[in-house]
């Protein structure tokens, strides 16, 4: 009897300790982590609370609220409470993050200890940032970061940006439509084709066009085909590259997706990219009214709010759709970006008529510590705390926080099933989609050369002219190529080549 009692009490204690929604002393004080409580690690709440930064001030420049700005402010408040530090957070619109840090950097000043930006700023910023110290490289949290995201945060082996977010573009779709037998029957009857998760951009276009402009979910509102980031200068270049990788990233022709690394001739106007832009121009017919002016926020709101059948870009729209307050929670699915039945071979100058798919490990939020900061240790502690296990898991569950999976442990479907209430098959397909992208040998990484903004801005201008009907896709991309050649000339061919070689090494799986 005594043995049974002992066993029972041990079991009850175990259940209480390991219960997913348990209360510990930290989650009592910080309700943000109530789902998990503190998770042990080098920068856990417990460990950070042992630091004393009383009388010290940490200055942070981050993005506007909510995307990344909100978690920055929240974790700053928590960090201040735990360590006694004063943390000043400045919020800046996305388009101004680069200049807000770069202007003082160039002038030899450092008004902020921590600067948030995008991972593709790395080449322009790295000379002003402190490399991540070995101590933090060896933390339990850092060891969990995926190889891709260590690569994205590093420059030729040295990490300058502290990983707090992981980004890639993938396809999101309305599972309740695509997997619906009635819809499948109707689609087959009307088009003669199968309704399934699209594996090519052509299929994506056909389905989006079919489901455009009518109420297919019976909510009394019209729905549309696709929500995409098409607004000029609002990350649209990334959306264009997502559509281009299938046609232009050929695994048989290593040596550069954006340029031919040997000659530094831009590939941007080759038939692969032109085909992608032609598809994109066609897409203006199946986006919601005003869709050609959609920025990322609009895309998240549109797909997350149940307005469209498809969407592709960062995780945020999918996470928004899967939040508890979403009308389409557990009605959405994920899949790799569509591919193409042909891919351009820039060596032979012909199309390879083989199916091709390439993941786009697009840039994401990145953050670094200024080399001239006088409180570097505190700054790194803050970043390590930002991305500790408990904060990270809690942040992942909130769509508009902009924090997406970048740790190997994020690919465990149970994380989403247990703490976020996702359906098991959705969680499994989500983690599989992400995991498969990590495994792919045909990935495209963001362009990270000197003056990267000049290149991406030229893409945004050219492609937006095509979307607006001002130029044909070929004319628009010829204009971009001409501009890219001029930029390469201005920056210096060997300098761009040297920078680009680092990215190509990653794409060619040599780093």
């Amino acid at each position, binding site marked *: 009897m005594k043995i049974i009692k002992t066993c029972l009490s041990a079991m009850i204690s175990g259940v209480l300790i390991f219960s997913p929604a348990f209360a510990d002393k930290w989650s009592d004080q910080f309700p943000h982590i109530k789902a998990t409580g503190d998770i042990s690690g080098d920068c856990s709440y417990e460990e950070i609370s042992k630091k004393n930064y009383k009388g010290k001030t940490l200055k942070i420049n981050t993005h506007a609220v909510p995307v990344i700005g909100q978690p920055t402010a929240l974790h700053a408040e928590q960090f201040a409470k735990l360590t006694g530090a004063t943390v000043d957070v400045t919020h800046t619109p996305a388009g101004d993050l680069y200049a807000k840090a770069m202007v003082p950097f160039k002038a030899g000043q450092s008004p902020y200890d921590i600067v948030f930006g995008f991972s593709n700023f790395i080449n322009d910023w790295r000379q002003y940032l402190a490399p991540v110290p070995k101590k933090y490289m060896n933390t339990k949290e850092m060891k969990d970061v995926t190889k891709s995201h260590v690569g994205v945060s590093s420059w030729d082996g040295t990490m300058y940006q502290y990983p707090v977010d992981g980004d890639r573009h993938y396809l999101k779709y309305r599972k309740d439509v695509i997997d619906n037998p009635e819809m499948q029957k109707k689609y087959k009857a009307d088009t003669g084709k199968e309704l399934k998760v699209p594996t090519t951009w052509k299929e994506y276009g056909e389905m989006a066009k079919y489901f455009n402009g009518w109420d297919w979910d019976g909510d009394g509102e019209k729905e549309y085909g696709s929500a995409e980031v098409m607004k000029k200068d609002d990350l649209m270049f990334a959306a264009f590259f997502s559509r281009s990788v299938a046609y232009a990233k050929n695994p048989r022709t290593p040596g550069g997706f954006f340029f031919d690394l040997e000659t530094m001739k831009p590939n941007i106007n080759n038939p692969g990219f032109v085909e992608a832009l032609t598809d994109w121009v066609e897409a203006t017919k199946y986006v919601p009214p005003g869709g050609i002016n959609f920025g990322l926020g609009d895309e998240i709101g549109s797909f997350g709010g149940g307005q469209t059948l498809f969407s592709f870009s960062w995780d945020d729209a999918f996470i928004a759709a899967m939040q508890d307050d979403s009308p389409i929670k557990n009605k959405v699915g994920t899949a790799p970006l569509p591919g193409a039945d042909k891919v351009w071979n820039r060596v032979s100058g012909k199309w390879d008529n083989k199916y091709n798919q390439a993941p786009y490990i697009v840039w994401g939020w990145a953050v670094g510590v200024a080399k001239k900061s006088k409180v570097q240790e505190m700054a790194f502690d803050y970043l390590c705390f930002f991305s500790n296990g408990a904060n990270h898991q809690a942040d992942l569950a909130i769509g508009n926080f902009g924090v997406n999976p970048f740790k190997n442990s994020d690919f465990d479907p149970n994380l989403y099933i247990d703490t976020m209430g996702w359906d098991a098959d959705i969680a499994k397909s989500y983690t599989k989609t992400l995991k498969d992208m990590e495994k792919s040998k045909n990935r495209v990484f963001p362009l990270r050369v000197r*003056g990267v903004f000049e290149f991406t801005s030229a893409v945004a201008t050219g492609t937006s002219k095509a979307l607006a009907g001002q130029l044909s896709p070929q004319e628009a991309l010829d204009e971009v190529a001409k501009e890219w050649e001029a930029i390469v000339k201005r920056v210096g061919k060997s300098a761009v080549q040297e920078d680009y070689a680092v990215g190509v090494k990653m794409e060619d799986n040599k780093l």
Partner: protein
Amino acid sequence: MNFKHKYVFLFPGLFVLIGILIFPIIFVVRLSLSGWNSYNGLNFIGLENYIRLFTDDPRFWESFIRLSFLSVTTVTLQYVIGFALAHMVWKEIKFQRFFRVLFLIPMMTTPVIMTVIWRTFFHESLGPVNDLLQIFDVAPKWLTDPTLAKITVIIVEVWQWTPFMFLLLLAGLLSLPKEPFLAAAIDGASPIRKFIYVTFPLMAPISIGAIIIRLIEASKIMDTVYVLTSGGPGTSTETSSFYIFIKGLREFQMGYAASMSFTYLIIMIISLTVIAKVLTKLLLKD
């Protein structure tokens, strides 16, 4: 007596003038002769930026033409509407004070916030404007059609800045002498003749001033375009200041942006001087 020490009292003013006016202009000129960007410092590259601007950047000139169109159209509309409103509340009418304050409200609001609200109004799938127009079965593409997007920018600009024109013109009307109007009344002039032959000519100097002030302001249009369309669709609403902003603060081509700014400044000084002279000649014949 030697009053040379009186010049000492000029120093504070002179110092401020140099600090806030002369130095920035000199710095912009110096910057424009450099290739300062994310990968170069304040080096010296001579006239390279200017050569690029005049020989290899049609986008700047296209944006300038677009700006001229938008400025002239918006200021003309603001003048006509502003004059009409000022004329209306100049006379003794019911709720005169209420209307005077009401007409000034748009100018007192924050342009960026108001533009965000206008953008919401004109949002093609969620905005109330198209919701209302659905009654007539039309759904204009306010922000995504190149022509309509220009019109939308004009509407927002006119709404925001007509009160400024209204204020200047009302002040002008209130300061007009009474005698010419009395003489016209004794002569039995109709209201239209009174307006054409008395009010309008008397208001000409004030009108010229108001138009020039508004043209200077309108030529700097940036926030409306930035928030409403980001210069799109394509480049159809991109103005010079927005283009300079992109080159300078988005692409960080500070040297090149400085050369565009300086060129733009020179062009504006010349064109506004010419416009002022032409208006003076047209409106102040006698």
